[in-house]
């Protein structure tokens, strides 16, 4: 017999209410864990997809749209830019590397990106099968795209016009020459080919018999790596002022984006805090109401010699056990739920989201919830501390 045994027996005696308190605590922790895991994954994913790109240059329009369409491939591009403009910018002495992107087609919803092999190196992707493209209409598939479309070296496919599924098919067929290993970045969901392939398929300046429609070759965007931090600041100013195109900084635009996303994430955190307070209140109300019915038991314990401190500790231990059980259940449920969300939402799977990863935020959440539970026990524990023993002896006769 000890404090913990007594606490556990008391909790078991009030099993329905205990279960209710544990479940409420578990729900609050589960919600918190889900927010932490999702936010953390998004943050990491955004950072990984940025891949050290300092600037994105493209047609004038919304800078955020340019970043989203060129780095994350989730929005339509702002337009195209002339290849000549791109070449001029690439020759700037403050630029270490440029990677061209030519967008416009997809294969069953997976974007076909015209680029050069540096794009593969940018995401540190390596080949699982095959090799890079060497000729027009050869293509390399990202791991998730290859898996979803059953592509392997030698496979052929037709591109469709547009960036989403459902556009008209182009007559020219692509041939897969390589498949990349999974990287957990956006490249997993892309099909890569040469810029020329994308330009050719759109008949841009290549077909002599369509001279009247032919125009100068265009690309969609340039991913730029600057030579130094000063260039990252100066280049956009110069490009936006002196050229017909626009330079956008991923860091700056993502700060804006995360600020916007932050509102919803703060709402979720707020909801988790409300749940946590409710869980603490349920522990408080459970203990407080149980004290009414247990006042005789507590007085008996005091009469039998149990000190006030032990009685206080017993009530705190009851709250501690409840909060601890709830927090543990919530932690497990949060990870299980995140695993279920990953299983249902394909982009999360493709981006390498894992429910087996534990984040420092979860430790803080766990400790906070247990502390809140203990705090909720203080008033009931103080009441137990002050239990009047003499009341057990009848009346004041």
């Amino acid at each position, binding site marked *: *017999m*000890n404090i913990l045994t*007594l606490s556990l*027996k*008391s909790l*078991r*005696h009030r099993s329905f209410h205990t279960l209710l308190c544990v479940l409420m605590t578990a729900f609050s922790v589960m919600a918190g864990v889900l927010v932490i895991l999702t936010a953390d994954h998004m943050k990491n994913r955004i950072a990984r997809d940025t891949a050290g790109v300092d600037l994105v240059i493209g047609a004038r329009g919304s800078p955020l749209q340019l970043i989203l369409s060129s780095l994350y491939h989730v929005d339509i591009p702002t337009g195209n830019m002339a290849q000549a403009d791109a070449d001029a910018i690439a020759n700037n002495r403050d630029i270490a590397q440029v990677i061209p992107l030519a967008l416009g087609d997809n294969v069953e919803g997976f974007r076909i990106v015209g680029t050069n092999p540096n794009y593969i190196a940018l995401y540190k992707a390596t080949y699982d099968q095959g090799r890079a493209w060497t000729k027009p209409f050869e293509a390399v598939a990202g791991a998730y795209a290859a898996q979803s479309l059953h592509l392997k070296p030698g496979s052929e496919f037709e591109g469709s016009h547009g960036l989403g599924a459902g556009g008209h098919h182009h007559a020219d067929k692509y041939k897969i020459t390589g498949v990349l290993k999974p990287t957990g970045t956006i490249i997993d969901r892309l099909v890569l080919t040469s810029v020329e392939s994308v330009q050719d398929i759109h008949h841009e300046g290549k077909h002599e018999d369509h001279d009247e429609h032919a125009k100068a070759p265009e690309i969609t965007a340039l991913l730029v790596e600057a030579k130094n931090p000063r260039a990252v600041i100066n280049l956009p100013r110069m490009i936006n002022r002196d050229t017909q195109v626009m330079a956008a900084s991923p860091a700056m635009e993502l700060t804006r984006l995360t600020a916007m996303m932050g509102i919803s994430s703060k709402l979720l955190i707020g909801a988790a805090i409300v749940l946590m307070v409710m869980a603490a209140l349920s522990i408080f109300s459970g203990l407080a109401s149980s004290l009414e019915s247990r006042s*005789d*038991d507590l*007085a*008996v*314990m*005091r*009469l*039998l*010699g*149990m*000190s*006030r401190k*032990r009685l206080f500790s017993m009530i705190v231990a009851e709250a501690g056990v409840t909060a601890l059980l709830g927090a543990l259940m919530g932690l497990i449920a949060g990870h299980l739920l995140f695993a279920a969300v990953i299983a249902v939402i394909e982009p999360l799977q493709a981006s390498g989201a894992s429910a087996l990863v534990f984040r420092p935020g979860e430790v803080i959440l766990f400790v906070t919830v247990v502390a809140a539970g203990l705090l909720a026990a203080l008033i009931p524990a103080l009441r137990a501390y002050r239990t009047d*023993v*003499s009341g*057990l*002896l*009848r*009346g*004041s*006769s």
Partner: protein
Amino acid sequence: MAMFDVSSVRCTAGGRTILDVNQCAIAEGDHVLLQGLSGSGKTTLMSVLAGLRKPDSGRVAFRGQDLAQMNADDLDLLRGATFGFVMQGFHLLRHLSVAENLALARYAGGLSSDDQKIKSVLERLDISHLSDARASTLSMGEAQRVAVARALMNDPAVIFADEPTSALDDLHAGLIISLLIEQAQMSNAALIVATHDARIKSRFSRVINIHGGRVAA
């Protein structure tokens, strides 16, 4: 030296004197009945003797030690390890088993757990078969025995019983008094019973009558 030595003790409640004892002593192994009507002050005297209530004035000594001078922790220890209590209604913890109720008495009294002791006390009271029974399932007679067993768990020097027979019929009242006297004799413990129940008066060699907070004889 008397086990309990009460001198010039006065207790008040709401400005009214509820206990006023000039001199009273109880020896080791004494079996004493504190008798009086409801509100006469017998339970207050018992509370004072057990260290549960500090008198407004006067001195209560247990084996020469002034209870008023002891700190709360020492009083808790004294109560747990040296006194045993049987209350009206018995007050067993209903969600614990009989053995756990007895184990609680050891733990609350600051003593180490002792399964052998529990077994022997249960055997002594002929209730071994109830060891695992939950207290809430016991009959009145069984609960009486378990309450006495709990009071005996720590080999007390004094057994206090407050109105142990008040709600009982003659048969059960007689049984519990017999049990208390028998067990107190076996343990060589003093037995102090506070009651207004005149049925049990004949069972005690010493009766202290209390009227209006004063010891009559």
